[in-house]
Structures are given as C-alpha cells and as structure tokens.
C-alpha cells in the first residue's frame, strides 16, 4: 500500500514497522508530529511519551535501550543542545537495543531561534549521522538506524530538516516486525562512566569510528547515480533533491550517511569526474571532511551556508561556477504587500499580562513560547529571548549588573518553566535576588500546537495522570511570595506586578487562564463597539487583537473607527478595559 506521508509521519511509521518499543520527546517545530503520530496511531503496540525536556527524553530512551527496547528520542535541533550532556557520554557507553536520536534542524529559521547544523554533533560525539532526503527514506532510515546502532554498539543520529519533516511524499507501507528484547544485563564497565571505565570506553569509540568508516564505504545508504562525467556532485538530505532538479545531467554521489564519510568512495568518484562539487545546506560539513582528505572539491563558494537551499539557489550556483548554461534566476516585479506577522490569538491570556507589563513600565526578559509574540508591535514588550528558561537568569543578571533604570520582570510559560525554569528560579532565590517572575500558565504547550506536559494531568497516550502543582513547586524552591492573577483583569495584573516588584525577595506571579485554542476552543459572547460612543482614539487597536480591525469609516479627523469581528472575538474583554469612554460592550 502507498500513502502520502510527511517525513515526520513516515518516521513514526518506520519506528512502528521496525520494532520500535519506546519513544520519548519534548515538542519542538519541526519535529513535534513524530511523537503525536506515534501517540495517535500506534499507542496500542508501542510506548510513547512527552518528557519534561530533551535531556530527560534522551535519558529515558537510553534507559529503555539499556533495558532491551528499540528506542527513539526526538527533538528539534536546539533540543539536542539541552540533551548534549547525556549524548556525549552515551557515545562511550553505547547501547543495548537500537537507539536512534532524531534531530529536526530548521535551516532558514522558519520557527526557531537559530539555524545550527546538527550534523556537527555526529562528529563531536563520534556517532553516525543518517540523512534522509524524502519521506520514504525517513521511514527506511529508522531501520538502518536501529541496525547500525545494534551492530556497532552506538547511538545513531537521524537528522531531518524542516523540508524533510514537513513535506509530503508517497511512501510504501509495510507490516510491523518485532525485534528481540533481551532485557537489561549488568555490565558495570560499559555502563558506569567513572574515569577508569570511561578511559577504556573512549578507546572503543575510536575503534568503532574506524569500523563505521568501513561500513560507510559499502552501505547502500551512499549511492552513485551516474550521468555525464563532466561534473560530479556530492549531496545529501533535501539538497540532493534540489540538485536533481537543478542539474539533471550531473553525476551524483548521494550520501544517506552524512558521518562518517566514505572517503575512498568519494576519492574514486572524484577521480572519474572532471569537476567535483558539494551541495549541502548550512555548514560546509562534507566539504571540510573531503578537503581534509586531500580531495579537490568546490562547495560553499557557490552554495551559501546561510538559509535553506532551493532549486533556484542550487542552479544559480552551478551557473556561477560555469557548469550549467543560462542566466541566473533573479525574480523581478515583487509587489510590496502588507506583512502579516504572527499575532497572539483573539482572547489569548498572554495579551492582558503583556499589556499590564507595558503599563507597569518594566523591562521584560522573555522566553520561548507564544508569549514571545509580545515582542512585536503594537505591544513591543519583550526585551530578550535567548533559549528556553533564560528569562529568569537574564532578569537576575540585569538586576545584579545594577545599572538599569527600570526593573526587569522575567516572563515565561508553564511548559518552558518546567523545561528549564526551575533551576534558575532556585538559583535566584539562593542568591538573594528580588526579581519578579511571571509564569504565563495557559496549561498547555501552545506554540508547538498544544501538547500536554507534566502539569496538565494528561499523558501523550491520553491517560489521566498527576499534575505538578506550580505554586507549591515555587514555594518548595524557597519563593515566599507566590501570587495568582487573572490576566483578563488588566488593573489587577498591573497592581500585582507593581506590588511584587516592591518586595525585597524573589516573587512569582502565575496567570490563571487557559489557552483559547488547546486542548479545545473556548469562546464567550463577543464584544461590540458602540460607534455612537466611540471617539476613534485607537486604544483598542494597541492591544494587538486580530479580532479588531478598521470598519472602513473614519471620524472627521480621519481616524479609523474600529469594528470587532463577531466570529473571531472570544469575549476576553481586554479591549473594553482599555477603552476610555466605555464604547465596547458585551453582546447578549
């Protein structure tokens, strides 16, 4: 049977078909749908979970592998930074049952804070990297991943990119094959990484890499598509597909295994073509390895390390290199059309609290989640966003630096707080800070599409479970002033922020309204603007709600008279609270 599947869906299918038993992840675009698919379609056969963060996801998967189950840990590229600590030493211990780590990279930063190239982790940790170029391979490479992992006693990094994860292609579907699960076997020298054991295991890692290099020379993962021998191209992942379209006549060495490279095969390929190129997205990863082996090759000179590639960029590179004829494509006549930046949804509980911070005259060290959108106009009230959990340490540092005119409030979501906010909060309390931390508790991981987490009382497989009590947790790390506010009440929110900032100790404010979209849509009676009363002051536009637009009418001074979309308005009342003349009223 054949189905149209995204790379993420296909990878989930591969996990199921090739005997996977344990899957753990923390959500993150573009990887999220992998665990969602496993949880939705295969939960009767396999185990799948959301972990509190990527480090825990990997550690759980490592345990499952030690315990005998074929396992995967799934994350977006920056998630592997969080999981880098277990990763680097996991390379030494190796595995028991097959263990695949899935990293979904995001060239062009479609939904990320950076565009790091996680193939570099393969070299850093001395572990093999597999790079599928479409959905079929995303599925098939899970089998290779498990097999290589078991044969060479190594974790395997399976690297997707946004265009692999989120493109749909036709995939052939097979039956599940069970893998043998022999359980855990004590092996102290292999699994207990104290110096005396680690020293021996590192020697094994070095030997293993040599064996993997031999494997790379022979594996069908790396294949040559012979064509005209004037130009040879080495490529992998999505760049391979672009190359097929951009330069159909070229001979291509397609790398399905991006690390370690089959240097002999590359040397042989190089000797048969007149000119050799590497086409790869982001870092010159293959290029540097190939050059280090003394093979002449051209790459980043023509194919930028900045943003994702596409057919046009690849073709332009070949034209510039003088091997493809024609003119470079440079599209003209682009219309300047009004931008549509992403916005907080109508009724989003983050709007009121961000507005309250703006009115309180504070800096806001922000974090990663829907609430980061508070950085955009008209709210423009987020002053930093670095990585998950950084808001608290950043506010603390600004306080200790001591020179800032306004106070800084740390602002982060519930999922982010659990992921990486507890440790900096304890650090701030311990070091006698007096920062105020606002946790926007919308009871879901919203930015990535509404995933549960340890404080939502539901598991990925849909079971009821216990929930972390956030106020108790804050008290337990030593915060004495923990206060709940209703973010739909602007005045109360401003009052809470001002009062907590006055205190000479760390305080935490927790908002208490759920997300309007997830797990299910919430709406109340919409509000309406009485145009007789409205003075066209524009205050309601400034809360940045997509339900409020211009009616097309203006007052005598040319100011737009607003209108509220009945369909979009959820009745949160923030606009009514900022209206100076009470023109905005709830409908009946």
């Amino acid at each position, binding site marked *: 049977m*054949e189905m*149209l599947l995204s790379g993420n869906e296909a990878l989930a299918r591969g996990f199921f078909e090739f005997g996977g038993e344990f899957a753990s992840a923390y959500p993150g*675009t*573009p990887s999220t749908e992998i665990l969602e698919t496993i949880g939705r379609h295969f939960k009767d056969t396999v185990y799948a979970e959301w972990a509190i963060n990527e480090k825990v996801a990997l550690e759980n998967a490592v345990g499952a592998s030690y315990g005998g189950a074929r396992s995967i840990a799934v994350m977006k590229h920056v998630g592997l930074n969080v999981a880098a600590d277990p990763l680097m030493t996991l390379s030494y211990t190796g595995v028991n049952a097959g263990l695949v780590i899935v990293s979904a990279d995001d060239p062009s930063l*479609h*939904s990320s804070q950076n565009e790091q190239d996680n193939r570099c982790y393969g070299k850093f940790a001395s572990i093999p990297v597999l790079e599928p170029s*479409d959905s079929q391979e995303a599925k098939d490479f899970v089998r290779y991943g498990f097999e290589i992992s078991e044969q060479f006693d190594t974790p395997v990094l399976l690297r997707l990119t*946004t*265009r692999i994860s*989120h*493109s*749909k*292609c*036709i995939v052939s579907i097979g039956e599940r094959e069970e893998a043998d699960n022999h359980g855990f076997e004590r092996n102290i020298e292999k699994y207990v990484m104290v110096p005396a054991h680690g020293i021996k295991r590192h020697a094994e890692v070095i030997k293993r890499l040599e064996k993997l290099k031999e494997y790379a020379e022979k594996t069908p993962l790396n294949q040559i598509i012979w064509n005209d021998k004037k130009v040879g191209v080495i490529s992998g992942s*999505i760049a391979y*597909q*672009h190359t*097929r*379209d*951009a330069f*159909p006549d070229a001979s291509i060495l397609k790398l399905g295994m991006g690390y370690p490279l089959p240097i002999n095969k590359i040397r042989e390929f190089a000797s048969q073509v007149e000119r050799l190129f590497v086409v790869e997205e982001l870092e010159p990863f293959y290029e540097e390895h190939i050059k280090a082996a003394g093979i002449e090759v051209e790459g980043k000179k023509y194919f930028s390390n900045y943003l994702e590639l*596409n*057919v*046009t960029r690849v*073709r332009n590179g070949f034209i510039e290199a003088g091997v493809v004829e024609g003119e470079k*494509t440079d*599209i*003209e*006549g*682009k*219309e300047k*059309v*009004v*931008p*549509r*930046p*992403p*916005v*907080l*949804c109508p009724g989003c509980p983050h709007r009121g609290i961000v507005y309250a911070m703006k009115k309180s005259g504070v800096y806001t060290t922000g974090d990663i989640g*829907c609430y980061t*959108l508070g950085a955009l*106009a*008209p709210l423009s009230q987020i002053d930093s966003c670095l990585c998950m959990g950084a808001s608290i340490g950043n506010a603390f540092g600004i306080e200790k630096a001591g020179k800032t005119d306004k106070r800084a409030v740390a602002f982060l979501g519930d999922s982010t707080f659990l992921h990486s906010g507890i440790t900096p909060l304890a650090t701030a309390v311990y070091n006698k800070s007096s920062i105020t931390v606002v946790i926007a508790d919308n009871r879901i991981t919203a*930015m*990535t*599409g509404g995933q549960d987490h340890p404080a939502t009382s539901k598991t990925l497989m849909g079971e009821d479970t216990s929930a972390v009590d956030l106020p108790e947790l804050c008290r337990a790390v030593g915060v004495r002033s923990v206060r709940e506010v209703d973010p739909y009440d602007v005045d109360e929110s401003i009052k809470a922020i001002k009062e907590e900032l006055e205190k000479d100790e760390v305080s935490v404010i927790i908002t208490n309204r759920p997300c309007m979209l997830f797990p299910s849509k919430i709406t109340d009676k919409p509000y309406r603007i009485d145009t007789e009363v409205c003075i066209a002051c*524009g205050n309601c*536009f*400034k809360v*940045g*709600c*997509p339900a*409020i*637009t*211009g009616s097309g009418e203006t007052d005598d001074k040319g100011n*737009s008279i*607003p209108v509220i979309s009945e369909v979009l308005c959820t009745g949160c009342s923030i606009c009514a609270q900022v209206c100076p003349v009470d023109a905005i009223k709830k409908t009946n």
Partner: protein
Amino acid sequence: MKNGTTNILLAGVGGQGVLLASEILTEVAKSAGMDAKKSEVHGMSQRGGVVTSHVRFGEEVFSPLIPDGEVDALLALEIAEGLRWMHEISKGGKVVVNDQKIIPTIVYSGGGFSYPESPEKRIMEKNPDAMIVKAFDIASELGNVRLVNTIMLGALSQSLDIDEKVWLDVIERMAPKGTGELNKKAFGRGRSYSA
C-alpha cells in the same frame, strides 16, 4: 511545466484552509497515478500569518519546492495574497484568486502599513487571463464560509487535466465528517464558475 512537472502554489491567510486544500490537491494527483509532493511550513505561520503550500506532480518529482518563477498555477484564497505571489508565475501560468479581502490588524495599529489599493486591477494588469472568483459570496450562499477552499479548488480544476471523478472521490474521503456532499457541491460551483 519544465521536465513534465506541474507546479502549483497555494496561498492564503492562516485559518482559511490552505493546507487542507493542498492536501486534497496532492491526493488527487496521487490518485490520478502521478508522483506527487507538497511542502509547507507549520508553526509561526499559523498564527494569523501568510500561509503558502507548494504542490508538485508529474512522472517523477524531486524537490518538494517550486523553483523561483516556475509556478504553473497560483491558487490564492485571499486577494492581496494573490498579488503577493504574482512574480512567481511562469509564462503562460494560470492565476485563480478569491476576491475576498482579509485586512490584518497591523494596518490599524500605527506602524504605517496599508492594505494594497485595487488588488484586483493590479492582478489583471499583470495577468489579463487571471480568474477572479467570488468564492466568499458563493460559500455564504451555500451556508458555510469554510467552503471557500473547496470552491477555489473547483475553479483551479478547470485548468488541470484530471478527471472530475478523481476529485470528487478524494473530496468525499477527505472533507470533514458529514460535509462530503456539501463540499462536492462547493467544488462543482467552482468547477463551473466563469467570471
């Protein structure tokens, strides 16, 4: 239609059903026996932003992304979004645009942005054969504004050589539960539409 691959760009605003429309189109191409791929970006763009989806089909499709300027047909569910992508259309490419306007709040919140003037006229100047569809009006007539995407697929189907039955089967299968008949009717209205 270089190398026999047909490239279709679907565009609109978050919430209009661009992704479901591209899903249906890709399934239709697959059901018609072709290789097919589609690509889009999920995440930030769904929060009220610009949404596009690339659909490619033919004998054998490699890249899931349409090369710059090689769009054979643009299907836009919102008129300014149609204007935004006009430069991507290849010589002889088709343009099918919903005449609906969705004005973003940013126009009113004081950043100096404005919604394009007479977008319909500007589209027609660039492509005199463009088909402007009153899909929102038809959808309202049919009693559900969510039918816009299906009506627009019907309008697009006029310029694709794929059997109507294939379309109807896929729509039946993929329309939200209980809306199969209504969606097929909406598709029919688009397929017989003439401006």
